[in-house]
């Protein structure tokens, strides 16, 4: 570690000093601002991210959320903030580690250090007032933190943030974030007009005075950094790529739901799904829709089913424990071929688990949770952009196939923010208006096409179509089945629809060469990190490619063929699997990653897995290591490769 007792002025005079500044030109950098909750680090980060996006950088931001609602000040568990990864190319994931951090106290910095969030050579700008605080406990805490941090090669830069802010405002707790923003603007050479614009937008509901005070602090930070910091960092903008929007995955899901023409979101609050409904509660009514907060998750899905039955496909949105509660109703929806969209924003499990953290461990529950044979569709968006479009797809499939579609997002997509191509909403994305035309004479409630299992839907209000929906085994007329054979046939009809849908899908594209030593298979939010890892590994000369599945049920076609072109296939997933080599774990009893379990069964290819449940998104660097170690085994094991 390298601590500067005082930030060195970069020169006597600004101009002269400029010559002595190091200008680091990099393809990407990862910045974070951490503070106690309520100190505004998030706002600072958001503005920095937005400005960077507007300036043409690739951007991916994530919130750093404390474990409590209002944690006490200066404790590691209280670390709250924002992390922004910017690059010269589109940025698809949160990356490996922070390369520059601004911390409002040393305890929150320590928290980040302990979570291994900081790159070994990170630059850490930390408020220095605590070192000389009048409270001896605080001084001691500072000392001990510095000594803990000294184990790494960090470059620690103490900054008199509070002291500086006090020159302009009385309560620096409310201004430090703008000072920090100013420092960052200086270091990364952000366009100050854009920054001011963004501040104006962020505080648009506040008074002009607040805006002015914030801008003054911003400029103070900018000036201070200009004078005292001896380095600048340059991240070239990415080539412009048309109109963009920037939002997080939950906003994208909400907007996508609107664009699909659905009009009812029935939900019960649960992290990390709730913010979709917060967004929709704010705007949905303008679009002719409502958010119904039901008394529990069971009621929520029941309301959505009732609404869908009444003619307009509705959706419910939830997370792990809520999905569990919907299990019985999902079985009913499948049995009655009710079009229904269910969004599950996955978090860490089992049970209450890690409520705010990412995991991809609800795949099997979503697929197999319902008792009996309950075929339905599962789609997992892989990017924030796909969170938008998946809702349109899901609604259409639900309706066309009279089926349940579960959309599996996760906490990584939910809270990540990145720019993407601005969608161009179309009328045909939306459900058709209700058609209450009389039902043709003799048409049955489930007039299954015996080849496809598809049948036209009849809704209340249609003269001549009266029938009773039932979860009991029933025949084409929705009559309860007493005679044998009906159940076998109706089961086949419900199942057939998946095969038909699968016949309409294309094999997933392979990222990288279409053959080689190792194929990494992923699903959901890990796409960006996996492809970045593949790029890095290929750059190192490794014969690795990847492919990413959106459809988990039915599985996309052609997988076995793709797999066969690689010596080894391995899924990368954020869920639990037993590690080979651990006590008692054998190839026979090993519990594998959830996708790998499915792929092995479907393809009989020895699909291995590398999975972790760290309570955070996977880092591309760890995936590179996993790839390396897998290839190492492959090249050094006597019977390398699975393709017997």
């Amino acid at each position: 570690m390298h601590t500067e007792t005082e930030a060195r002025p970069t020169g006597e005079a600004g101009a002269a000093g400029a010559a002595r500044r190091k200008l680091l030109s990099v393809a990407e950098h990862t910045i974070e601002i951490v503070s106690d909750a309520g100190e505004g680090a998030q706002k600072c980060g958001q503005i920095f991210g937005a400005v960077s996006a507007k300036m043409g950088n690739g951007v991916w931001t994530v919130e750093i959320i404390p474990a409590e609602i209002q944690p006490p000040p200066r404790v590691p568990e209280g670390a709250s903030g924002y992390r922004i990864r910017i690059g010269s190319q589109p940025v698809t994931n949160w990356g490996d580690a922070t390369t520059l951090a601004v911390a409002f106290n040393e305890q929150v910095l320590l928290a980040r250090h302990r979570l291994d969030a900081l790159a070994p050579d990170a630059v850490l700008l930390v408020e220095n007032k605590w070192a000389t605080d009048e409270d001896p406990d605080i001084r001691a805490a500072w000392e001990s933190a510095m000594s803990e941090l000294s184990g790494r090669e960090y470059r620690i830069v103490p900054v008199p943030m509070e002291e500086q802010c006090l020159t302009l405002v009385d309560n620096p707790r409310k201004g430090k974030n703008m000072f920090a923003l100013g420092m960052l603007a200086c270091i990364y050479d952000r366009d100050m007009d854009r920054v001011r614009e963004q501040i104006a937008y962020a505080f648009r509901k506040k008074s002009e005075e607040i805006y002015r005070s914030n801008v003054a602090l911003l400029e103070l930070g900018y000036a201070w950094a200009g004078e005292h910091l001896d380095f600048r960092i340059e991240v070239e903008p990415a080539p412009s790529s048309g109109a963009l929007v920037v939002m997080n995955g939950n906003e994208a899901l909400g907007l996508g739901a609107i664009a699909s023409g659905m009009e009812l979101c029935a939900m019960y609050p649960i992290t990390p799904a709730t913010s979709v409904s917060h967004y929709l509660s704010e705007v949905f009514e303008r679009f002719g829709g409502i958010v119904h907060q039901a008394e529990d998750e069971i009621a929520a899905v029941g309301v959505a089913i009732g609404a869908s039955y009444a003619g307009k496909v509705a959706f419910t949105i939830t997370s792990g424990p809520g999905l569990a509660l919907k299990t019985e109703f999902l079985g009913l929806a499948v049995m009655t071929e009710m079009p229904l969209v269910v969004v599950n924003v996955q978090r860490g499990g089992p049970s209450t688990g890690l409520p705010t953290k990412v995991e991809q461990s609800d795949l099997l529950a979503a697929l197999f949770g319902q008792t009996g044979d309950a075929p339905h569709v599962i789609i997992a968006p892989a990017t924030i952009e796909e969170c938008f479009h998946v809702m349109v797809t899901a609604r259409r499939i639900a309706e066309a196939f009279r089926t349940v579609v579960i959309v599996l997002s996760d906490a990584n997509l939910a809270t990540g923010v990145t720019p993407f191509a601005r969608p161009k909403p179309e009328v045909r994305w939306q459900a058709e208006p209700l058609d209450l035309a009389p039902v043709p004479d003799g048409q049955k409630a489930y007039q299954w096409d015996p080849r496809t299992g598809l049948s036209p839907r009849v809704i209340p209000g249609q003269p001549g179509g009266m029938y009773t929906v039932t979860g009991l085994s029933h025949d084409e007329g929705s009559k309860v089945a007493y005679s044998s054979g009906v159940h076998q046939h109706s089961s086949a009809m419900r199942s057939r629809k998946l095969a038909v849908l699968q016949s309409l899908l294309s094999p997933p594209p392979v990222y990288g060469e279409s053959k080689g030593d190792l194929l990494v298979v992923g699903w959901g939010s890990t796409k960006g990190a996996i492809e970045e890892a593949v790029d890095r590994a290929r750059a190192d000369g490794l014969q690795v490619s990847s492919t990413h599945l959106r459809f988990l049920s039915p599985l996309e076609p052609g997988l076995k063929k793709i797999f066969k072109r690689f010596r080894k296939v391995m899924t990368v997933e954020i869920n639990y699997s037993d590690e080979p080599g651990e006590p008692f774990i054998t190839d026979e009893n090993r519990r594998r990653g959830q996708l790998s379990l499915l792929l092995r069964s479907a393809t009989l290819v020895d699909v291995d897995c590398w999975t972790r449940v760290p309570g955070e998104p996977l880092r591309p660097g760890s995936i590179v290591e996993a790839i390396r170690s897998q290839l190492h085994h492959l090249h050094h094991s006597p019977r390398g490769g699975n393709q017997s």
Partner: protein
Amino acid sequence: MTAHSVHLPVLELNLEDYEYEMSDYEGARARWCPGCGDHSILTAVQRLLAAEQLAPENTVFVSGIGCSSRFPHYLKTYGFHGIHGRALPIATGIRLHRPDLTVFVVMGDGDCTSIGAGHWVHALRYNLDLVVMLLDNGIYGLTKQQTSPTTPQGFRSNTQPRGSWLPALNPLQVALGVTNTSFVAQTAEWVPAHLYATLRAARQHRGLSFVRILQRCPVYSSAVYLEAVQKPSNINMLVHDDGVVVHELDKIYTNQVAHDPHDLDAARRIAGATDRVNLGVLFRDGSKPRYEETRRVPPRTQAERVALIDAELDRYAI
């Protein structure tokens, strides 16, 4: 009114003039046991549908699971035979999207007051415009005689063979305890005229009308209402102009008690009475907010929506 019978060519029917008869609402042959009280309720409901001239295609019966919940199958309206205890959320979804449909809910006592208790409390509170019938036979019928919350204390069942351990839950009192409840009535299937009049009052009330219908199950709980059936003197008829008055019953049911259904305190006292069985409207208040109305939003066309989304995307544009 639009109406259409599937057996007649659409165009030859003069829709305006067509008058529905009870038989227009007949579905599959009812398969309840002989003597089951549900038969009489089905008849009363068919009578009501005809009296109100409800178009079968615009009428939906929603139920849970139980003998009683077979109800929709036996009507030729739209029907949703759901899952145990969850009829009310389904009905809520239907009404939220389709206020143009008339929705009835049929539940058993286990369905409504045991597994469905949470939804029941909240549906009363939402106060959607629904007619909600609790077919209370004081027992689990379909699963063959287990204790339900409304089983009288001491009554033997297959799960409590030494008699039910607790005093029976009083569904009227629970309903009257829920904020925003707007209509609570009690009737009995063996008094068809009263049953019909009560259902009609329920249908005419705007908001959720909760009607507990005492229902005999001769197979598993015949003893439960025996006394009330055999001795009309065990029954009080609650009468009021704002409730139900069935003059044809005056001679048989001579205990007539004037009760103003706007008096909540009195309603609660009456609900709790244990000496006699009270039939009639206990409570009615048409002024309570109805969730479906407070939540109604102006509809949008597809094109409007496209334009609005585009505007919304501007907020996220960079």
